């Protein structure tokens, strides 16, 4: 169990990216044999801190101490030598190799210059037995599910005699049962004296596992709590800061009630349970917000309704007509879709504003059924620029060279050329500066006032509450709570999304 010997200490860490401070005077310490959770909203600086500790980023100021001595870490290899292993969110295992080959990758035991497979398997079996993992040394990793693959990676970290494991959202892609066995393993490791940094958005997990909790807010230490002090409402308050919480949402004008249902989704489920039996209705002129944690199934649900991905059962109707679940047909029916991954899915970086705007609208700019009218195309691009103030206003500017905010405006600009009925926007302001955010909000509000249904999926609570008329919170693939935005606070949404209430 945890004693008070400190194994890792990061002192007075400062870091900024192109002048924007991301970490300011952050202090973080981990004791020997404790599970230390690290929490904070998106952008609070958690992953930057971890990347500094693991040598991926260099720090601007501050020092890192390992077992009482100051250390310089410049690469992940340096960190591994100290005895720190990081279990990344995207798994770094090799599917074509066996469990044993993965564990000993790069340092296989050799006899006469050839790999000693027998010893490797034996050593791996020993490790497996010591930690009680449900693995077999000679099984191909390709044949393992995601949860077991994660155990392979943990085993690999442990095999280098790691004294500290860093786990970044380890349960993000695990089923409930897989997560449960992971928790048991984490507890077992702690009992054997291994320290663990546990990064998670899920309060229930943090409460269950951690001996202590460090909360970051806006790149600064907000609190360090002992296990007894980890109380959901207190943690949330610490994470988001009290002032913001109370002011948000209340100032917004309430939308006039309009009961005309435009989009009606019934019992929507997919094959693998990313969303299960989801039903909701969206009304004319409504901005409907989807809240919840990353991985709750919001993006998957929207993609399936729009028709990019398949769903297994359920129906979605637009003004009483069932959708055909193909992007092409959905666009024809009056859908617009602004994807989460703007750069890869939202626009074509090498093309100009004119071309990007025209891309989804060639059915409109087609002159006589076959050829494209350059003039119509150009007029449309210029119209988009004027409508939503895209800068620079040069219609021939490559979109890839613009700022994130203006790129997003181009994406919105192409949709508003159409006769839209429903516009789905997924994380519309991720990576966009504050000024441009406001402009994007007012574009969305404008569209709603024209009677268009706007569905917004966002992990930014402030944004969710500020923009939405009504909020649905998803958790593990189901809608578990509905809020009217006039009365909701960030804590309420966060509590519902992390499963603390109800």
């Amino acid at each position: 169990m945890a004693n008070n010997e400190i194994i890792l200490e990061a002192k007075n860490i400062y870091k900024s990216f192109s002048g924007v401070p991301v970490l300011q005077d952050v202090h973080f310490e981990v004791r020997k044999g404790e599970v230390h959770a690290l929490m904070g909203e998106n952008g609070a600086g958690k992953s930057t801190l971890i990347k500094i500790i693991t040598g991926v980023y260099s720090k601007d100021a501050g020092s890192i101490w390992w077992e009482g001595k100051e250390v310089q870490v410049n690469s992940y290899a340096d960190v591994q030598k100290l005895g720190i292993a990081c279990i990344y969110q995207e798994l770094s295992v090799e599917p074509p190799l066996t469990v044993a080959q993965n564990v000993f990758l790069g340092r296989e035991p050799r006899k006469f210059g050839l790999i000693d497979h027998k010893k490797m398997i034996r050593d791996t079996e020993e490790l497996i037995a010591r930690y009680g993992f449900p693995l077999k040394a000679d099984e191909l990793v390709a044949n393992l599910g995601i949860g077991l693959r994660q155990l392979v990676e943990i085993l690999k970290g442990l095999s280098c005699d790691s004294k500290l494991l860093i786990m970044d959202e380890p349960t993000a892609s695990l089923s409930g049962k897989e997560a449960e066995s992971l928790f048991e393993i984490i507890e077992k490791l702690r009992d054997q004296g291994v320290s663990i940094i546990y990064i998670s958005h899920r309060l229930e997990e943090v409460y269950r596992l951690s001996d202590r909790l460090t909360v970051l807010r806006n790149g600064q230490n907000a609190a360090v709590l002992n296990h007894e002090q980890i109380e959901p409402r207190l943690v949330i308050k610490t994470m988001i800061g009290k002032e913001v919480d109370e002011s948000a949402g209340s100032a917004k004008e309430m939308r006039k009630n309009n009961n005309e249902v435009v989009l009606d989704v019934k019992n929507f489920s997919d094959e693998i349970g990313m969303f299960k039996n989801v039903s909701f209705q969206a009304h004319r002129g409504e901005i409907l917000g989807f809240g919840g944690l990353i991985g709750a199934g919001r993006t998957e649900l929207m993609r399936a309704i729009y028709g990019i991905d398949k769903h297994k059962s359920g129906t979605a109707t637009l003004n009483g007509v069932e959708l055909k679940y193909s992007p092409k047909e959905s666009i024809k029916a009056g859908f617009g879709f602004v994807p989460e991954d703007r750069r890869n899915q939202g626009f074509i970086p090498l093309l100009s504003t004119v071309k990007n705007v025209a891309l989804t609208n060639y059915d409109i700019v087609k002159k006589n059924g076959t050829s494209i009218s350059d003039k119509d195309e150009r007029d449309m691009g210029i119209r988009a620029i004027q409508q939503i103030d895209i800068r620079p206003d040069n219609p021939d500017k490559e979109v890839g060279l613009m700022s994130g905010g203006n790129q997003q405006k181009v994406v919105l600009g192409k949709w508003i050329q159409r006769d839209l009925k429903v516009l789905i926007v997924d994380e519309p302001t991720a990576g966009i500066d504050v000024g441009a955010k406001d402009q994007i909000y007012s574009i969305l509000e404008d569209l709603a006032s024209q009677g268009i249904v706007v569905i917004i999926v966002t992990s930014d609570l402030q944004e969710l509450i500020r923009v939405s008329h009504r909020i649905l919170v998803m958790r593990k693939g189901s809608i578990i709570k509905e809020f009217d935005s006039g009365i909701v606070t960030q804590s309420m949404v966060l509590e519902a999304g992390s499963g603390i209430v109800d």
Partner: protein
Amino acid sequence: MKQQTLRRLISLGMLAALCIFFSVLSKSFLTANNMLEIVRDAAVPGIIGVGVTYVIITSGIDLSTGATMALVAMVMANIYKYTLIPIPIMILVGILVGFVCGVVNGLVVAKLHLPEFIGTLATMGIFRALTYIIAVRDANGTISSVAMNHSSYAILGKGFGRIYFVSIAFVVITIIGQIVLKYTRFGTNLYAVGANPKAAELSGINIARTRIIAYIVVGLCAAIGAIFTTGRLQSTTALLGEGFEFNPIAASVIGGVSLSGGYGEIIGTFIGAIFMAALENGVLKLQMNTAYQYVIKGVIIIMVVIFDAWFNSVMEKKAQEAAAGKEA
């Protein structure tokens, strides 16, 4: 049964089916001599296939093997025609040329970060052009084929009776290739780099070095292939090996090496090379238009690739279900 074992049996089954098909239609197919000839014809693509398999496992490709062969042969032809350098040293120089070609490919791909397809397409052109530049010409300046018929060189085209030396080399190199793949860190690293380079890097594997060595192995194999080919032909031309790069790649694919990297083994390529040679041989025996050979080869490759995609997904699904069943 393990997936790999099963896949090997499938390759063997395909080969057996092909052989049965041809032996029913032609009496002269299933004879000991013809079988030994098939192995001989499979040998050069199979030897080069060892290196190509390594490269494909790292999720690369090498299109320059035919041109490498030509360059190696032409350098040796110059030595043969214009110097008194002994044959063994000439052969060593040839192997060195293959090595250098491999290094060039490796650097272009791993250090200059060109996509493998484009990088080796470019070097294919360069190696072929160099071959023309150094080609031996007759008195009128026309490129001519060069005789390399000294008895101590021509012996490379022969064997113990009908067991050709090239066939022996094919078997030996295949065995060494398989051992290196399964029992050395380099072999494991090939899979790691091909399947998940990020994970390989985090495990301290030098990705660039692994890829460069793989291309060097191809260069060496191509040189060995060139030596045996010219030994048998007792001559070379600037056209040697044109279009040949297709064969080792086809052998690998038929043997179950995945073009997206991470999967495959040398034994598969061995069987694949024999399959291709048997197909060619059978088409000739049936006196079909040889153009059909390319149609049949192409169709078979398409079918094998489709089959492998399906096969791998089925096997993975089955194994995952089995694993899930165990957990429950």
